[in-house]
């Protein structure tokens, strides 16, 4: 056994991206039809066929959401996986990002040349709150809905930083307006005003209804490939400059729910891989996982775009707007579209669209470097990638 250790990884390129139309209930398709729609669009973008795919990596959040245990077994046929390797990832809300990273590693490790990665959720098959709150015996009943889990952490952030009350509404207004420019986004209300958001019901004080994410059916797919595949691609690829996952326990003594250490470590790792020393200056667009609007300022700090306590000031001053100098969620983000298991991959894919120059009406001019971010569980699982227009290492 004397084969040489790899001197470097194979560069990974994103050459195809596809999303479904995201809506609250895709009653026109089966689960297979839903994932197929995203996959077919990704193949079309890459001008590839099913036969060009070496392996499939699929992710989604808990199986109870659709009531199908390990649905990848049934989806193998629809995704052209028969006779190929198929992997199924589940890392809670971060799963869409983790799935893309597992797929990217298959290329980086030179195990495969071209991989289809896909994440989905068809929430209309059941009801997310049912899936999230199965009545486990002996446990104290959940005393509040989904937002009730996050709202106390938002209050803690406000207490810690002195952020004014209106920041959350500013984020929601920005993301929902961005969504109007995204043909795939779920929530689209051209008549939306900041006033409407600020007068929407306060569900879990300090979180308002309009500051929460919707429940969507949707899927997102990407075609990842090596240098040879990228050379054949019809459109400019996005190159993966760094990818990382970090996990910390669900609940523990000393856990910082406002700015989890795993998020900081994950960001530091991807920045290091990508040679980023000043993320605020070097990153042109960010797609971050913001299920409740207040998480934008929280993650701005956690990801090193702002000093601790300063994230809300970036939001307030318009830096994160579509025309700001650090646009966050040009796609409209999770606040506008939330097929849970796919939401993380949509972040990764939208970051890639930006550096490919293929984001359409929500394109950030000259975006060269973008961050895709996903998180899940009790703010404990993080997955991120940095993608760029240039091939890493020149």
């Amino acid at each position, binding site marked *: 056994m004397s*084969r040489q250790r790899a001197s470097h990884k194979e560069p990974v390129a994103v050459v195809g991206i596809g999303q479904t139309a995201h809506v609250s209930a895709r009653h026109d398709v*089966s689960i297979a039809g839903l994932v197929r729609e995203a996959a077919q669009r990704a193949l079309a973008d890459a001008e590839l066929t099913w036969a060009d795919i070496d392996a499939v990596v699929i992710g989604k959040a808990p*199986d109870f959401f659709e*009531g199908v245990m390990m649905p990848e077994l049934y989806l193998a046929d629809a995704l052209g996986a028969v*006779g190929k390797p198929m992997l199924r990832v589940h890392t809670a809300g971060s799963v869409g990002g983790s799935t893309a990273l*597992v797929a990217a590693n298959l290329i*980086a490790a030179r195990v495969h040349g071209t991989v289809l990665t896909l994440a989905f959720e068809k929430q209309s098959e059941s009801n997310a709150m049912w899936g999230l709150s199965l009545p486990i015996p002996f446990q104290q009943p959940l005393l509040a809905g989904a937002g009730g889990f996050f709202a106390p952490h938002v209050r803690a952030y406000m207490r810690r930083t002195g952020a004014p009350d209106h920041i959350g509404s500013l984020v929601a207004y920005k993301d929902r307006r961005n969504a109007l420019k995204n043909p795939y986004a779920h929530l689209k209300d051209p008549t939306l005003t900041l006033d409407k958001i600020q007068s929407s019901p306060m569900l879990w004080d300090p979180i308002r209804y309009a500051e929460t994410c919707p429940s969507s059916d949707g899927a997102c797919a990407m075609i990842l490939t*090596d240098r040879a595949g990228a050379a054949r691609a019809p459109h400019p690829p996005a190159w993966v400059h760094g990818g990382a996952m970090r996990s*910390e326990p669900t609940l523990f003594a000393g856990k910082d729910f406002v700015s989890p250490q795993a998020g900081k470590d994950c960001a530091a790792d991807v920045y290091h891989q990508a040679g980023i020393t000043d993320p605020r200056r070097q990153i042109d667009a960010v797609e971050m996982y913001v299920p409740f609007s207040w998480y934008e300022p929280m993650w701005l700090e956690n990801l090193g775009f702002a000093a601790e306590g300063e994230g809300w000031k970036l939001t307030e001053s318009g830096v994160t707007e579509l025309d700001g100098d650090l646009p966050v969620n040009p796609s409209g983000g999770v606040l506008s579209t939330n097929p849970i298991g796919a939401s993380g991959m949509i972040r990764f894919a939208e970051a890639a669209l930006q550096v490919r120059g293929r984001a359409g009406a929500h394109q950030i001019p000259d975006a060269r470097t973008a961050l895709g971010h996903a998180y899940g569980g009790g703010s404990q699982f993080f997955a991120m990638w940095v993608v760029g227009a240039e091939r890493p290492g020149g």
Partner: protein
Amino acid sequence: MPPTPAPTGPIRDVAVVAFAQTDHRRRTDELSEVEMLMPVLHQVLADTGLKTSDIGFTCSGSSDYLAGRAFSFTMALDGVGAWPPISESHVEMDGAWALYEAWVKILTGEADTALVYAYGKSSPGQVRDVLTRQLDPYYLAPLWPDSVSLAALQAQALIDAGDTDEPALAAVASRSRADAQSNPHAQLAGDIPSGDYLVHPLRTTDCPPISDGAAAVILAAGDRARELCSRPAWIRGIDHRIEAHGLGVRDLTDSPSTRLAAERAGAYEVALDTVELHAPFTSQEVVLRKALGLGDDITVNPSGGALAANPIMAAGLIRIGEAAARIHRGESDAALAHATSGPCLQQNLVAVLEGDPRE
């Protein structure tokens, strides 16, 4: 054009350097999943002298449907001690696929060691009914065809094809349980009366026990592996393939996905002495032997296989662990380990493990 990947094998040498499993039991009511899992995590760490913070990557396999709870794996993570935060992932699959993901991670060079674990408690639910939820939700799941019945359809197809008969199946069962007598972790060992038909043509003895259990493996690359283990079980190749889902479109008497995975893993390029097959039903061993072209000169399932203990989600990883452990102990020089998932062997993984030549 850049160089294409070498088709002959992985770009780094990666080995299984430690393996531990629980004693598998019908019920473990007194233990939560993390309480069941922790001892095997501690054992592989102790065997290698590693701490959680030394491990480059952690990956696990488990199923929410088995547990009856969403996000069940998040609580199992408590047993790892993920602090400071760790690089970690999870597959909703048998732990053998978690091992595959970890192997890929090491190949990228981003990690030199990996902790892989898997656990499954079948005792909380009716596992035959739970597994019906794996099936096509439109055409199959509404009929609730249970896992034993599906295996029985496969067994009858084998009998009809002349590939086996009931005495041959009984022989597989008795050989497995006899071999399991030397496996201290086995749940079902020794002379078991052949029993009634559970679903004809399968008798209770043709079926796996219902098990709670967990397993853990440590992988390491190159010199690190040699430091951690006196005789590492090198992964010469590992590959997995899936087949069509519908039973009616497949030839149930064959396993082309196993054969292809074995080819890709290089199984036909080494002189295997041992095979650990993840065949929960006796009839599935017949299918796998046929697909792999195994002769009678190879030791199959010296651990007793899944017929001796079948902790779902861990049983495939245990096959890799058992094969590796034999190499560690010097009882094997080249072993094939197999894992399966889905109805009637829909998805299959093959790993080929080798020990360094003996002095």
